[in-house]
């Protein structure tokens, strides 16, 4: 056996291999290990070492692997192990080398990297400590012994005593010859320490980056993820086990077997004619989990995956697929590489119970609450079906209602309470209509980058609505942030906006097509902003590159349209493929968009302009046209703002203006982040006063305590924007039937603007609340044709989170219940206080 030790792994080496397999999430138990050891023993007993070593791999792999990927992985790991132990004599003589090299086998990848970085930290800290201590010792070393005292003066007097002190002073003075020497020396000594500290700080800072960017060496444990507010775990381990038990609960299905015990009496009852009663047999239900995963490092999907892993471990029959935004194409686990059409999945797993774990934004047409027909159709093949939403409950909207009503989904949050509700539903009767499953308790914490709750989308943009779709692509967060800012800016100008981030071509076409479908009139204003290059890729993706502000003059013109006027396409990007719409493949896109000849011509104009533009001077030109836009919209402020003329600068400018007016502080708006409020207040579209303006455009409803803020606000609106404001304490004529008059004003205003603050909420029971109810009543009367124009609905979320009744779980507006104070043509400027 010792002869074979040269090329065959020993039991210890096998053990190390097993350890590394365990790290790689292979599953095996004592049986498998015993089997492997048996085979290893046999191999050692084999006479021909080389043959045994070659065959050992293929003999052992079947024991441990369970998927094709695992099989390949095992082969790779085994080859690494064999390569490590190939120089056998060396390894035999130096066992510690073998050990070290074995460790690197075991910790292939992440573990090795971790060890390396840990080693680096220790080395660096020891070096820094050593240098620091050495430097310190050198600094603090005792001063050199003073030179031997001068030979005693024969006649010691008082004068000689003072003379003996002076040389000592002189000695120290000569040692520190120059001013600041000690300082410089200390600095030099501390340099390594400082460098080390800086390095540690850099490492520490890096750790503070977004969680989802850090893949981490170990998988997230859902039981450890805690919700920030309630300090309770998102998924409790024990609870998951209980939920798994409920999910596993058997169904009774009919079988082909005769139930003899019941057939006999039935047959006797039937007067002897054979009456078969068939047995029902228990069958465990299977589940199909579809998990939305934005990227390979999506932290949220990772947590959900681990929770599903638990179910798998608990013997729940689970099939799992991932998707991004659009569930039409799904990627499976490593048993089936590549993506599959949902129709194929349905053919295979149609009898499963469907559970979608997703935010679900990709299921909807971007500008309204309609489920995309193809998504609805594809998912309707399963019953029952449920969506567990990863969105924080505060940002739920009509879309979640649409999931229940249009999609027939059961709805719950992606948390342990949601899963428990789902399990309860699974155990209950199957034919209930879709519903909201849980009394809303716990929800997923907000996903990074999606913290801004959703604007309440309107059910159907009516004619004359300005709508914009912004599409951006690219991993650069800067670009995405800018496009979102642009969206906010456009919202300030009265646009309905939808932002598509990195869509595939189909999604983009769907979004645009829905836009044109809902705004069919040519006089409607539609803005499409592509940030980047719109070109068909091999797999139908849209590639977008950098480039900004190409068509800014068009853009500016569009922003200045007071109402609907025409249909404009603004395409912003690097280069367009002129033949794009000639290609037959893409004609579907053009058709879906309803692009006619003139639109195509407009596209060509843009394209031509793009081509003419010298590439090097691109940025400057974009800026200058942006300057023109800003000067037009914001007047003299632009001049004052100087060179900072980017979108970011624009928002800053607006924020600055709001701050100057002192509105922010009074209403405690900074709690919500000042950027959002600046978009509300700062960038108000300049309106031509007098043309067809009603007597008062904005009814400001405020509490007595907020009168100062309301005054400032109305001053700003009247002076800067030329909008007439009606304030009860100011504009109510004396000796008027004041309640009647206020009601009339609410009926006739264009905008109802409740100022919501702590004081206002305290006074809601009083007359103030009645004003809001009147507005709501008017909204209800006009429901149906009313476009829901909700501004900054998010702002109220914190005030209502505590005591929102369940009647309107979707609404994040301050008026509960299905009817919200939405008035046609009125915009609600919701603001809220910190409390």
């Amino acid at each position: 056996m010792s002869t074979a030790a040269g090329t065959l792994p020993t039991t210890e080496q096998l053990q190390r291999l097993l350890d590394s397999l365990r790290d790689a999430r292979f599953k095996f138990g004592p049986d498998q290990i015993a089997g492997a050891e048996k085979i290893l023993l046999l191999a050692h007993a084999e006479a021909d070492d080389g043959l045994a070593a070659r065959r050992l791999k293929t003999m052992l792999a079947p024991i441990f692997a369970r998927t094709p990927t695992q099989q390949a992985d095992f082969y790779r790991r085994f080859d690494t192990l064999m390569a490590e132990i190939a120089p056998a004599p060396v390894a035999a003589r130096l066992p510690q080398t073998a050990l070290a090299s074995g460790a690197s086998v075991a910790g292939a990848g992440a573990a090795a990297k971790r060890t390396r970085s840990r080693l680096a930290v220790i080395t660096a800290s020891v070096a820094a400590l050593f240098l620091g201590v050495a430097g310190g010792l050198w600094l603090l070393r005792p001063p050199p012994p003073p030179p031997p005292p001068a030979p005693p003066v024969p006649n010691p007097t008082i004068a000689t005593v003072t003379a003996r002190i002076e040389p000592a002073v002189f000695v120290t003075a000569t040692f520190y010859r120059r001013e600041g020497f000690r300082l410089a020396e200390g600095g030099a000594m501390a340099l390594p320490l400082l460098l080390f500290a800086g390095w540690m700080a850099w490492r520490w800072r890096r750790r503070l980056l977004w969680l989802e960017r850090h893949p981490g060496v170990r998988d997230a444990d859902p039981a450890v993820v805690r919700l920030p507010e309630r300090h309770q775990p998102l998924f409790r381990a024990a609870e998951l086990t209980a939920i798994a038990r409920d999910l596993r609960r058997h169904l009774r299905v009919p079988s082909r077997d005769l139930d003899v015990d019941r057939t006999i009496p039935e047959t006797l009852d039937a007067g002897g004619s054979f009456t078969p009663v068939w047995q029902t047999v228990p069958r465990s239900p299977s589940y199909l989990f579809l998990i939305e995963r934005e990227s390979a490092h999506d932290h949220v999907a990772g947590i959900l995956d681990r929770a599903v892993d638990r179910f798998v471990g608990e013997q729940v029959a689970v099939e799992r697929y991932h998707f991004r935004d659009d569930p039409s194409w799904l990627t499976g686990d490593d048993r089936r590489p590549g993506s599959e059409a949902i129709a194929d999945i349905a053919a295979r797993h149609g009898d499963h119970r469907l559970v979608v774990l997703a935010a679900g934004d990709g299921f909807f047409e971007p500008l309204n609450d309609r489920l995309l027909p193809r998504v609805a159709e594809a998912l309707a093949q399963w019953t029952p079906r449920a969506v567990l939403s990863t969105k924080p409950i505060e940002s739920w909207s009509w879309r979640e209602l649409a999931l229940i009503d249009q999609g027939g989904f059961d709805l719950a949050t992606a948390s342990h309470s949601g899963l428990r509700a789902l399990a309860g539903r699974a155990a209950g009767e199957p034919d209930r209509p879709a519903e909201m499953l849980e009394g809303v308790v716990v929800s997923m914490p907000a996903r990074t980058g999606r913290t801004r709750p959703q604007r309440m989308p309107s059910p159907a943009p009516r004619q004359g609505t300005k709508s914009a779709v912004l599409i951006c692509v690219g991993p650069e967060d800067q670009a995405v942030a800018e496009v979102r800012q642009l969206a906010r800016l456009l919202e300030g100008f009265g646009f309905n906006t939808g932002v598509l981030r990195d869509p595939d071509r189909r999604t983009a076409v769907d979004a645009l097509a829905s836009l044109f479908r809902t705004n069919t009139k040519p006089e409607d204003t539609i803005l499409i902003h592509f940030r980047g290059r719109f070109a068909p890729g091999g797999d139908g993706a849209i590639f977008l590159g950098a480039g900004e502000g190409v068509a800014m003059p068009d853009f500016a013109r569009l922003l200045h349209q007071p109402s609907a006027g025409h249909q404009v396409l603004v395409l912003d990007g690097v280069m367009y493929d002129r033949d794009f719409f000639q290609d037959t493949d893409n004609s579907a896109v053009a058709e879906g968009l309803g692009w006619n000849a003139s639109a195509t011509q407009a596209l060509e104009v843009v394209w031509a302009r793009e081509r003419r533009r010298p590439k090097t001077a691109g940025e400057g030109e974009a800026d200058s046209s942006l300057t023109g836009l800003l000067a037009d919209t914001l007047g003299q402020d632009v001049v004052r703002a100087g060179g900072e003329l980017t979108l970011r600068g624009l928002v800053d400018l607006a924020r600055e203006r709001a701050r100057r007016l002192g509105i922010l502080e009074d209403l405690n708006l900074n709690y919500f982040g000042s950027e959002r409020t600046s978009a509300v207040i700062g960038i108000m579209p300049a309106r031509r006063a007098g043309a067809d303006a009603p007597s008062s455009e904005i009814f400001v409803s405020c509490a007595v305590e907020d009168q100062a803020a309301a005054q400032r606000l109305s001053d700003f609106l009247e002076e800067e924007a030329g909008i007439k404001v009606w304030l009860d304490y100011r504009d109510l004529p004396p000796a008027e039937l004041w309640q009647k008059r206020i009601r009339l004003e609410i009926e006739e205003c264009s905008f109802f603007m409740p100022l919501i603050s702590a004081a206002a909420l305290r006074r809601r029971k009083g007359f103030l609340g009645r004003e809001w109810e009147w507005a709501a009543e008017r909204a209800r009367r006009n429901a149906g044709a009313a476009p829901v124009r909700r501004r900054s609905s998010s702002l109220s979320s914190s005030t209502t989170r505590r005591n929102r009744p369940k009647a309107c779980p979707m609404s994040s507006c301050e008026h509960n219940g299905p009817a919200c104070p939405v008035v046609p043509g009125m915009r609600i400027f919701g603001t809220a206080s910190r409390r």
Partner: protein
Amino acid sequence: MTAAENPDWRLLQEDDAAVRVGRWQRLPELPAVTDPLPKDYYADQALLDAANTALYLGRPLLLTGEPGTGKTEFANHLAWRLGTERPYRDQFGRERVEYALRFDTKSESRARDLFYTIDQVARFQQAQSTKGDVDPLPFMEFQAMGRAILYARPIDSLADRLPEWQAYPEEPCRSVVLIDEIDKAPRDFPNDLLMEIERMRFFSPELNRTVEAEPGFRPIVVVTSNQEKTLPDAFLRRCVYYNIDFPGVELLKRIVAARLSDLPQSATLVDDAIAVFRHLRRLRLRKPPGTAELLDFVRALRARGFGPSDRLEANDGWRAEAALTLLKIGSDHGLAKLPLLDWKDIREDAAST
């Protein structure tokens, strides 16, 4: 069978409906497709090693792989290699050989079906028309696993129940059992089999007895799966797993040569067909062609008049045949762009792998 000998490969034309009488007699004979014999099956060393491990540990061998990689055939091959095949006469008196005992899993299969099925209705009616106990044995039919366990026992009263055309071995013997496409069955199926497969015995409430294989004659179980469903962990833990990779060029040639016996091994036609086939497989089609499609493709080419030493490059007729035989889904046609396919690309593909 070239075009000259068989000018009628274009048997049906648009405007020849008048002369349809007797047409069927001029249908071409089916091309020579020989059923693969288990001894012709080529198993590579890794697969054999996996079987070795399974045999040594006494566990079922679970095989996965794309359709057409020969999962099912391997069970027969294994039976042939181990010499457990069993000659028999079928109902028509023809000499046949049964290699592996095969169980085809259905979507409604239950664990008991693997051992025996029983016609309860007939039994019930029999019980109604006669007095006294009814022997359940005549209504039972033993299935693959049940038969394998019976074979592994010395002859006893149960032997009567086996179909007459199957010789019941007098001595206990081992057999290979193939459970085909286990993932078609409901999830409970593999879970219910755990104990039975481990102990190689089953209990029949109708007979009120347990049937168990002799320890030295335990059946060898081969399970195949198409990976359509996740198999339960407990089941996987008791199996030895091997994934059969899709065959490479050499193996494909061997397969074509074995299945289409009228083609010489060195036919350039086969080389070209395999090059096209492999090119298409690299395109990430929704339904990539398998070996069966390749065989169809080669046969269609032969029917079209391509000779064994012809090159596809010379004649564009192959494109239509490839579209018909290799691509099965509409969207794949768009991806493959067969009419525009350049031979340079295909050659590059072939060279790069």
